[in-house]
């Protein structure tokens, strides 16, 4: 099974991702704390506003010129406001509109009421972070918007990687279904080796005409290293890590997904199924080897036997011992030691 289908993916997630861990990644702030504790770079938090009283007491004017405000348990980027400058009476949104402090307070109220959060929530917290700006190496490829990187990991083993590049058509969104370009990344070199727009393979970015194949990504080693730590930090055995490369702060993990999509296979032109099978086989073999070594070590302690390192040498030794002992009538025609 080279391709990983929905059925097998769901079975894999049921086996490897505990319910608690899945719930955990829906909360952005708590996820960030857990990741930071494991040494994963995450965006800093400017403020976490948990209720109306805190919102009333919060000094919004103290916020920097550029920030992002989002619901802590938001879905699909809903309810996110990005501002990148101060204007008279408030801030300037990335879309160009003016965000007054009054409008910002109203937005926080909506977030706190859970209106912009995942279903089943009737209260939430508002998370404010500095605005992330795309690294120049990424920014030169796209017309505008923030490209991100998705790495699928099985435990701490990275399986497949792609970067999602916004286009004019996607409205700056790094979402393949909305028209962003998906570009497969080679793990060893950190360069793009294949790019896909919708169903079609492309070789340059449709909006900027920048050549994509062979383009190198900045901080690739750090990116992979950060992604590899997420699984252990969050307790997810199978995880899709979303990262961005900030122009000043470098690699940042934005989100971890307990149900990562399968479209990455079409982008890479390869299946996840065979890679998962390979990793799991290696893990099983390693576990078996460790078990064997463990039992032999246990034996050597209890029964005074050493683990057999070289079976042929051991056999030769045994043969010599027997040949030494057995003499006369039992002389062997050929020496075992030969």
């Amino acid at each position, binding site marked *: *099974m*080279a*391709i990983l*289908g*929905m*059925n*097998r993916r769901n*079975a894999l997630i049921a086996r490897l991702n505990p319910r608690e861990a899945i719930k955990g990644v829906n909360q952005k702030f708590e996820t960030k704390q857990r990741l930071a504790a494991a040494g994963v770079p995450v965006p800093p938090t400017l403020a976490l506003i948990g209720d109306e009283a805190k919102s009333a007491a919060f000094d919004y004017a103290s916020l920097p010129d550029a920030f992002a405000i989002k619901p802590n348990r938001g879905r699909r*980027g*809903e*309810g*996110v*406001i*990005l501002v990148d400058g101060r204007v008279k009476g408030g801030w300037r*949104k*990335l*879309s160009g509109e003016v965000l007054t402090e009054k409008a910002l307070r109203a*937005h926080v109220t909506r977030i706190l009421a859970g209106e912009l959060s995942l279903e089943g929530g009737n209260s939430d917290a508002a998370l404010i972070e500095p605005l992330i700006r795309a690294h120049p190496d990424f920014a030169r490829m796209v017309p*505008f*918007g*923030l490209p991100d990187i998705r790495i699928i990991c099985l435990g701490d083993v990275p399986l497949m990687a792609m970067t999602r590049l*916004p286009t004019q058509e996607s*409205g*700056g*969104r790094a979402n393949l279904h909305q028209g962003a370009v998906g570009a497969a990344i080679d793990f060893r070199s950190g360069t793009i080796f*294949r790019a*896909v727009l919708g*169903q079609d*393979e492309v070789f340059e970015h449709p909006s900027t005409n920048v050549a994509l194949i062979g383009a190198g990504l900045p901080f690739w080693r750090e990116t992979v290293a950060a992604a590899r730590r997420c699984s252990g930090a969050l307790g997810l055995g199978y995880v899709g890590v979303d990262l961005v490369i900030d122009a000043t702060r470098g690699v940042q993990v934005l989100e971890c997904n307990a149900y990562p999509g*399968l479209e990455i*296979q*079409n982008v*890479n*032109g*390869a*299946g996840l199924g*065979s890679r998962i099978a390979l990793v799991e086989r290696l893990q099983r073999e390693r576990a078996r080897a460790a078990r064997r070594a463990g039992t032999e070590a246990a034996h050597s302690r209890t029964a005074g036997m050493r683990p057999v390192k070289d079976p042929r040498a051991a056999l030769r030794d045994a043969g010599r011992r027997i040949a030494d002992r057995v003499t006369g009538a039992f002389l062997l025609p050929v020496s075992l030691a030969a």
Partner: protein
Amino acid sequence: MRSDDLTLPGDIALQRAGYALAAALAATFGAIVWALFDRSDNIVTGTVIAMIGDPSRPWNLPGMHLLLVMPVGASVVVFVRSVLGWKTFGLFTPMLLALAYLQSGPIAGPVISTAAIMIGMLAVPFLKLLSLSRVGFLGTLIAIVVSALGAMALEFDQPALVSAFPVVVTALIVERWWNDYEADGPKKAVRMTIATLGVALAIQLLVAAPPVVRLAAEVPLALPLASIALMIVLGRYQGLRLSELARFRAAQQGA
């Protein structure tokens, strides 16, 4: 870049176009319903009865049969979802819809429930304007669907056409339809509607087929027990779904 602008002018235009299309569809469908079930003596009714028999004839299945074939319908749904990979509204909506069909009759069932769904769908945009809570919304929708079904039964003078069972199912379908329409756009929502109705029709035809009816009458437990075995097998299927063969063609070529 993510933005908080969720209602772009294009979205509103799209909604209007979708609404106009849905209204036109519902009107056409209303005409079909009228032609099928109007009892007054006219040439249309006469032709219809001559061609397909009495459209309001019931299935005449024993009450026990409906219960016994439910697992068969469930097996079909499991097969469709995990082997074919077609998306339908809700998990077992097609099965419930098929049971609703069975209560009304081979032609009346699908036609009447589809009419009720369309009426409910046309009501939703207006209900949305009132910004009700979800229970309030669903409750109102149920009442609207009942009014529509009741009006049809009175107009065509056939109380048997309408039973209580399909009403909640219809309201739920209508709600899901609008959610999916808003989230994924008209194309996907229409595709899912067709899949849902198609699977429901297939289940209806399967479980009302004479051999199945005979089997259920002679060995009542055979169908549910066989369905258990079948669903356990299907539930453990981990291979690719039929729809994924097309979806992952690019990945397959490289692999």
